[in-house]
């Protein structure tokens, strides 16, 4: 009995997980995400203000479901995450779920890569994915 209950709980959890995994939103055709500032190859003194540029779609806070919108995620010194899961939230994956379109971050001296990734109301990347080019900056 307990075993059956356990299995049923586990399978409901799995089903819930797969429901989230499937809930990608369509991106608008021609949508383009880019980092307005800083520029690729720039050498700058911290703190670094990163300004997010989005063409062809709009911004909506996390949890707000509206077609052709999403919210920004800044990837720092890491590659793109899994596309069928919510974007991780850690030091390398910063969420801007309040609809922010820029941020100021502290980075240690040295080279760093930055990339933007749009996520839907559930933080899952759109389909097709809306991501910026990766830029590399040097913090003095």
């Amino acid at each position, binding site marked *: 009995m307990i075993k059956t209950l356990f299995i049923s709980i586990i399978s409901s959890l799995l089903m819930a997980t797969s429901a989230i995994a499937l809930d990608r939103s369509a991106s608008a055709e021609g949508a383009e995400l880019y980092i307005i500032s800083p520029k690729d190859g720039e050498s700058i003194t911290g703190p670094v203000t990163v*300004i997010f540029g*989005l063409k062809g779609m*709009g*911004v*909506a806070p996390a949890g707000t479901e509206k077609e*052709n919108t999403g919210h920004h995620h800044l990837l720092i010194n890491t590659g793109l995450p899994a596309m069928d899961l919510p974007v991780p939230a850690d030091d390398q994956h910063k969420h801007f779920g309040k*609809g922010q379109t820029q941020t100021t971050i502290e980075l240690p001296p040295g080279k760093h890569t930055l990339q933007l990734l749009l996520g839907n109301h559930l933080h899952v990347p759109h389909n097709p994915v809306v991501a910026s080019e990766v830029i590399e900056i040097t913090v003095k």
Partner: protein
Amino acid sequence: MKHTLKIAAAIFVAAGTITACSNNPIEAVKDAVTSDSDSSTALPRSPSADGTRLTILSPKDGDVISGPVTVVFGLEGMGIAPAGFDVPNTGHHHLIINAGLPEMSLPIPADDNYKHFGGGQTETSIELAAGQHTLQLLLGNYLHIPHDPPVASDAITITVK
């Protein structure tokens, strides 16, 4: 009490109209409001966050450019939400072209001088006739009403070749 209910109902209907993207949501809100003489103060302005700054990132003041003109909106200290979504410390952009700031207690007009970006857009591309033009950004809340205090950019002047 009855009065309050009437206003609430009017705003509810107006908000519904906005969400449904009718032809003229602004007039709908105005009608709803002005049909009740004392209700102008009842229109919900949203507080803006301390230190919020709205700027036109591009073009720059004094630029001389060829059209179409891509205008990039910069917002520091608050976030963007599409029209119709009441989320604290958010708003959506309005681009004012060759006009001054509108009435701060009413929804921003929607016409050729006041462009709404209720889809949460953070940039646009516009066609402007050759000559000088002024551009200014104004943030509006979920009902297109400027925040309190208002969040507006400086006005810039550009010349289209």
